[in-house]
């Protein structure tokens, strides 16, 4: 029973265009969401997060949108750069009631940005 799903295993975009990575979740108790980026042979690195009290969080070229009613979040990268080519993991956690740091990850989406 996978509570966090990334239904697109891969995405290819042209340099300079927008990349949109999607993530769906099923557990309505989740109140904090994160995106991690992973290069081959390295561990995931934290990219951006959003609390469930917000619907948007922006950090430079990266913006995360949260639609609680649809249990859906997305990561927008504008403009996309070849160095953004990596696997992107969506993760969710329950923070307000009992924060233990337990993250539930999706299976990742491989982004390829073509020059």
């Amino acid at each position: 029973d996978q509570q966090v799903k990334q239904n697109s295993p891969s995405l290819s975009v042209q340099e300079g265009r927008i990349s949109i990575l999607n993530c769906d979740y099923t557990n309505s108790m989740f109140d904090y969401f994160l995106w991690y980026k992973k290069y081959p042979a390295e561990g995931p690195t934290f990219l951006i997060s959003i609390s469930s009290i917000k619907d948007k969080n922006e950090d430079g070229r990266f913006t995360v949108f949260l639609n609680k009613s649809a249990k859906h979040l997305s990561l927008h990268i504008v403009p996309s750069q070849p160095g953004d080519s990596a696997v992107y993991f969506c993760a969710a956690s329950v923070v307000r009631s009992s924060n233990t740091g337990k993250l539930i990850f999706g299976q990742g989406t491989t982004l390829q940005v073509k020059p």
Partner: protein
Amino acid sequence: DTAVSQTPKYLVTQMGNDKSIKCEQNLGHDTMYWYKQDSKKFLKIMFSYNNKELIINETVPNRFSPKSPDKAHLNLHINSLELGDSAVYFCASSLAGAHYNEQFFGPGTRLTVL
């Protein structure tokens, strides 16, 4: 100046053997984690320690035993290895409280059980 390091990076072993993976962080964090990334690429939490105290213990066979000698180290010992244990194991660390979720990951250990 590696933040979270794991040894070894690759581990190939026979079924039935016992092996350990070591993890160390020099970030001054007080919480450490072990994750398993299986063949379907899902990253799943296995254990978490805060100041040497076990705080997350997911449904993991008791052949897996984490050991935290101090808050900078969290080792994973696996007894009687099985084929299904083949995976990439990631160690991570964070600060407790508000920063629990911004976890710093090690490079991973690829375990292959033959």
